[in-house]
């Protein structure tokens, strides 16, 4: 059996969301926000009419990174922090194949923090979905770069997290992502819309999903988010999506709710722009070096003639 040269990325007849789920039962705690994410992602794969044998879901290590195991797609449950470069390799080797990264906030911004900017600045055609619960849950409660100040953690002192949380929306816009959004795992409608847009986007898309951990994060809970969630696009506060300066300004309000009782928790699309995607440039390089259907070995070896 040889590798097919061309693959069908899409199914002719649409499948149902459940067709994109494996028969493995998730090991997440009852009430975990990530249940909503895996349901939405399966639904979005169905909406995109992806062939389950053509899409690859890549993750790292952590509670949320188990997600590819619960999906019926190609999956790589890789090493802690390394989902993004694994996905890059998969994308560059088979650029016609959709690649989706599903990881946690610790995986993406702590151990894997050196990787995420590179596919963003290169505008590689892939989607990174971060399930942001503000904690390292699989190792039983340590703070992450996205944890709010003062949040308890077993490696923090009794004073809690000393750090200011990093702003992933500002960061991804700065890095050069061309689709940046935040959504909330208990709002299936908004999450489904945003994930679908991210998957359909030509270029690097980043989706931050507020996905509460009921076991370890007792502050950023469903009860906390429910009354505060606020759609910045629907409210008309942020509609000029290709305006990068406006997007940065809006993104700077991301954590206002940490400081003010009345401030909302924003969800919505912050930035969306069309820019050349990386692989188109790779094709130009292949063309530049005279890529042919059949390899011209003489042309290759002649350059080493004395």
């Amino acid at each position, binding site marked *: *059996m*040889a*590798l*097919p040269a*061309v*693959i069908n990325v899409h199914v002719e007849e649409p499948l149902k969301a459940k067709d994109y789920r*494996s*028969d*493995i039962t998730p090991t997440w705690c009852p009430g975990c926000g990530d249940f909503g994410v895996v349901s939405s992602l399966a639904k979005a794969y169905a909406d995109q009419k992806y*062939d*389950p*044998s*053509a*899409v*690859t*879901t890549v993750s790292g*290590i952590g509670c949320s990174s188990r997600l*590819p*195991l619960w*999906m*019926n*797609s*190609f*999956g*790589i*449950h*890789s*090493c802690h922090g*390394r989902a*993004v*470069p*694994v*996905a*890059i*390799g*998969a*994308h*560059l*080797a*088979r650029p016609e*194949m959709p690649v989706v990264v599903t990881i946690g906030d610790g995986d993406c911004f702590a151990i894997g923090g*050196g*990787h995420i900017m*590179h596919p963003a600045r290169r505008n590689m055609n892939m989607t990174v979905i971060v399930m942001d619960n503000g904690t390292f849950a699989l190792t039983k409660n340590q703070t992450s770069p996205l944890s709010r100040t003062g949040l308890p953690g077993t490696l923090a002192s009794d004073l809690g997290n000393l750090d200011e949380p990093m702003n992933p929306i500002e960061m991804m816009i700065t890095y050069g992502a061309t689709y940046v959004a935040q959504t909330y795992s208990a709002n299936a409608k908004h999450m489904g819309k945003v994930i679908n847009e991210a998957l359909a986007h030509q270029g690097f898309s980043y989706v931050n999903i507020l996905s509460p951990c009921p076991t370890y994060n007792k502050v950023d809970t469903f009860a906390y988010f429910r009354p505060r969630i606020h759609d910045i696009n629907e409210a008309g506060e942020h509609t000029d999506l290709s305006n990068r300066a406006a997007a940065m300004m809006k993104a700077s309000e991301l954590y206002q709710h940490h400081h003010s009782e009345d401030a909302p928790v924003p969800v919505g699309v912050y930035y969306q722009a069309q820019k050349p995607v990386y692989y188109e440039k*790779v094709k130009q*390089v*292949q063309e*530049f*070096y005279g*890529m042919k259907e059949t*390899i*011209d*070995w003489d*042309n*290759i*070896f002649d*350059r*080493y*003639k*004395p």
Partner: protein
Amino acid sequence: MAIDLTIKVAGEGGEGVISSGDFIMQAATRSGMEVMTFKSFPAEIKGGYALSQVRISDEKILSQGDGFDILVAFNGEAYEVNKPLLKPGTVMVWDGPHGGDFEAEEHEGVQMFAVPMSDIAKNTLKNYIAKNMVAMGAVIELFGLPEDSLKSSIHDKFIKKGQAIVDFNYQAIELGRQWIRDNYPDRDVKYTFPASTAQKDVIILEGNQAISVGAVIGGAKFYGAYPITPATSVGNHLVDIMHQTGGVVYQTEDEISALATVIGASFTGKKAITATAGPGISLMQELIGLAVMSEVPIVVADVQRGGPSTGMPTKHDQSDLFACALGGHGDAPRVVLAAANVQDCVDLTVDALNLAEKYQTPVMLLSDASLSIQTEAIPRPNVADYEIVDRDFAKPQPDPSIFNRYQITDSGVSPMGAPGIPGTNYAATGLEHAEDSGPRTNPETRNAMTEKRWRKFDGIEDAYKPIEREGEDGDDLGIICWGMTQSVTREAVARLRAQGHKVSALYPKMLWPMPQKQIEAFAKSVKKVVVPEANYQGQFADLIKMRTNVVPIKFNAYRGEPLIPREIEAMALELLKEEAPKARMAIH
């Protein structure tokens, strides 16, 4: 060998030492001779001591040899470093009698030619950069290297910059020649290059270029890497030829992501390779484990340098064997190959890709800093002669939920799914898993899967090409060596056997899994066994002790330079006269 001549150019890095060697090598090859070069330079971009040594013969050259016949000393440091090596019978061309930075002494039996290369470049040509060309002019006048060959090499190198630059270099060459004609009219030079013969159908490659060529012959379509001395140039050479063959070269942000991209690429069904050096190997260990666990074929070329830590980035060492064979956590089998010369760098890269595919495993390919820039002329490869192995892709499946990616098989290898093959999707994981790839930690699964991963390699010693052996059963001494040390050992063994000594040698290319049967059979057939290698611990000797019944004597050099044939010869003579074998010998 009727002709066996070694010319060494030495001086400060950045003043054309390396390019002089390259020109001599190319010119000699264009004149139909066999060549091999050895180069060494500091890690700094400019300055420091650099050397380029070219060995020229009319027969196949086995190694860099023992030393030089002709020294071209560009500066005082080069002279001081090489002074102890100026033995009777050698010839020195040096930057004098005026305008250089040193005065050469008289050396008994050494023929000396003073050529004011700095002065001519600076004051006559008004451009110091031409110094090496003046020196080359003197060399061809003195030793009869065909001028046409040299000039054509210079032309090809500089014509991109315009005819004026080519002519300027020709002028510098002529001034060097003229100086010799004017100042040494009655010279009787000890060495002369052989006359030109028909150029052979060869290609000239450096070790790292050869890995690149092997990668494209072997069908690799993805190369992801991070710059690191002395491995970087593998990628430099691939940029052109891999894109041309429809692949992608991708520069990552670190070595961890380099191997991650390679795993991701190979997961999709394409052959993928990276190259790095010791520090990169250290960073990649966790991902090597992922490739073992998830059974993804990958190739990692490790161009070894002096370690640990930053160590000596441009210097020779064979000290990554433990890291490549045993590194990382857990029970993690993998294959380690080691290249001895430029031809090996081509052939073993193809083998590495083939073995990775066949066994769905990481394959580590060892080279080293010296081999990375050693140039050799090798026969033009005939691609049709190479056997290319593709992994066992799974057939289309009716239902992905019952596709067993990690099916337990007798061989330990299971058909692999890939995007585009219907129904073969699965989630690869670094977790222990059942046949269907779902995570599992029960003892039955753990035992079955661990044994599966190791069982793959049960027959690999017989499946891989047999190890070459020199000598006969009953010989007094058996040498087992690996990597570049094989090249110098071959030359030493040829000399020893010519002198009538009963010395055998075994030249394994696959070091791990340990080729136990052949090592034990060889050891049994000789009176004692020694393993010379360029590391302190005797890493291969230790692996042999660990996985066979053989307890070899260790012979170690760890100074940052390759062993030379004369040292192997001396080692053998020492061991031949000893009654009781020594446990360990070292050379400084």
